[in-house]
């Protein structure tokens, strides 16, 4: 019996031995919402998810990957396009959002259509204006691929490729996209100080912005109507399209204000190129309506000086360490060693 137990034990150990990546959330952050199966990130799954994220085999015609619209150098948003571009240059209806600190978000997409990070990848994968693909098509392609089956074997302990494993790998990579090393975070940790102008901007932020763009994530990740006039061509009613509830008309998910220098253009339809335009919108462009966020009634009174100060503070939320982190970029090793294998 003892022998049997030790045998079973070693088999189990062999299967559950995973290399964990630390998820050292800074002390000024709340606890993540995402429930990690192993209590933290798993290195091999993160790397598998990263390879998939950059692999155009996901899209129907093999032309675009997730990274086509979510570029690491732009905080995983896209700065050239106001609306996302899919296969065959089809132009979508919304601005590709930045991807970071996803473990603190309970819903995804500008209208909250997706209820869990694991399930998010299914939306762009299947959307006919994005990748126009299918999870089963992806699984079939991965199964006959020269390197992915052994990658799945390594990451999950068995080589069968399923929808769940593809989605879990995506989640693991996306969960590794954490932004908490901006100047603001260093100030919070007592390692840096705001300039007088940044400090003045911080005061303004706390007075006028913090109720929706809540510290330290700089979003409550709730939904709100921020008074943008509707785009006549897009006719996008936001969350109303999901819930069918009139109170959700023109209501969109509140984005984080971190990394704004890298993630322009702004808003769900990418209508503003510059932070100046955003300031001007809140100061005098807010359109009254029955679903307008009550905090924005009458707009936010901001003098020119105050706008400058506020922007100075917002720049302290830029996180260069995150945006230029090589661990998030195109995995050269994976794709190059794959080519070498193919040539053999």
């Amino acid at each position, binding site marked *: 019996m003892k022998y*049997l137990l030790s*045998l079973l034990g070693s088999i189990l150990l062999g299967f559950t031995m995973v290399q964990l990546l630390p998820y050292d959330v800074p002390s000024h952050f709340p606890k993540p919402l995402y429930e990690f199966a192993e209590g933290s990130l798993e290195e091999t799954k993160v790397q598998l998810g990263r390879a998939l994220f950059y692999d155009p085999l996901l899209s129907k015609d093999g032309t675009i990957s997730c990274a086509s619209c979510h570029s690491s150098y732009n905080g995983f948003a896209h700065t050239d396009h106001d609306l996302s571009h899919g296969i065959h240059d089809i132009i979508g209806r919304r601005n590709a959002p930045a991807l970071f600190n996803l473990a603190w978000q309970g819903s995804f997409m500008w209208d909250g259509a997706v209820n*869990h990070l694991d*399930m998010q990848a299914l939306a762009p994968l299947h959307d006919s204006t994005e990748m126009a693909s299918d*999870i*089963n098509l992806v699984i079939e392609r991965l199964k006959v691929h020269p390197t992915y089956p052994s990658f799945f074997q390594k990451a999950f302990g068995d080589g069968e490729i*399923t*929808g769940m494993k593809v*989605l879990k790998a995506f*989640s693991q990579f996306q969960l590794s996209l954490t932004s908490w090393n901006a100047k603001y975070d260093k100030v919070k940790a007592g390692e840096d100080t705001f300039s007088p102008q940044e400090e003045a901007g911080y005061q303004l932020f706390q007075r006028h912005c913090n109720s929706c763009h809540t510290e330290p994530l700089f979003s409550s990740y709730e939904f709100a109507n921020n008074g943008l006039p509707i785009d006549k061509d897009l006719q996008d009613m936001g969350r109303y399209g999901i819930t069918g509830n009139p109170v959700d008309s023109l209501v969109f998910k509140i984005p984080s204000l971190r990394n704004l220098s890298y993630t322009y253009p702004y808003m769900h339809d990418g209508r503003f190129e510059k932070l100046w335009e955003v300031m001007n919108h809140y100061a005098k462009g807010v359109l009254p309506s029955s679903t307008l966020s009550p905090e924005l009634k009458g707009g936010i009174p901001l003098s020119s000086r105050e706008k400058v100060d506020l922007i100075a503070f917002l720049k302290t939320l830029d996180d260069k360490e995150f945006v230029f982190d090589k661990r998030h970029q195109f995995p050269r090793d994976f794709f190059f060693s794959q080519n070498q294998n193919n040539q053999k």
Partner: protein
Amino acid sequence: MKQLLLFALLLAVISLHGQESLLIRPTFQGNSLVLGTPYELANGDTLEIHKLRFYLSDVQVFRGEELLSRGVKKHILLDASKPESLAIILDRPIKGGADRIQFLLGVDSLTSVAGATGGDLDPSQGMYWTWQSGYIHFKLEGTASSSKARKGRFMYHLGGYEGPYAAQRTISLSFLSSQSAQINLSIDKWLAGIDIGQTAQVMSPGKLSSQLADQLASCLDASKKSP
């Protein structure tokens, strides 16, 4: 090694001995439903069923208030094209005066918000909406002469797990005798409540899908053992 084999054999024997299955039988006009067969309805409509797939969750068999047995799997995907999927494997035999069975037709809301899962709930099963999160609890597709959609198709996908239009339903059915370990789902009765000519497609949560889910509940019975 010998010990391990013996252990495995013992496990297999125990689990087999403890199992009993409960058959879910989709019917059409009183007989077992046959996919791809033309049926004629009373109103003159000719109709074929091509796809019937649905989830059952938390299957429980009772005698009075006493829980006798439950489904081995929490969530089961039933598929009319796979007869073996229509037999619910129970953890204990239910002989001995079982008088009621209870289950959720569909997937519960907690599971619906819990992220990616494998097996019967794997999104590659084609029972998950990609444009708006949530499982398709029940899916029926086919063709009908009255349908005005392309190629005479009809598609009914009932989904949505929260709010007023949630389409999962808790079902409780009485057994007439302990022998009738079978549940009939009358597809023709359900279709009689839909005007296919007017509505050939239901593919999002709403008033109609919620209504259709209510009607589905009344098309199930465990009271008679069918031939």
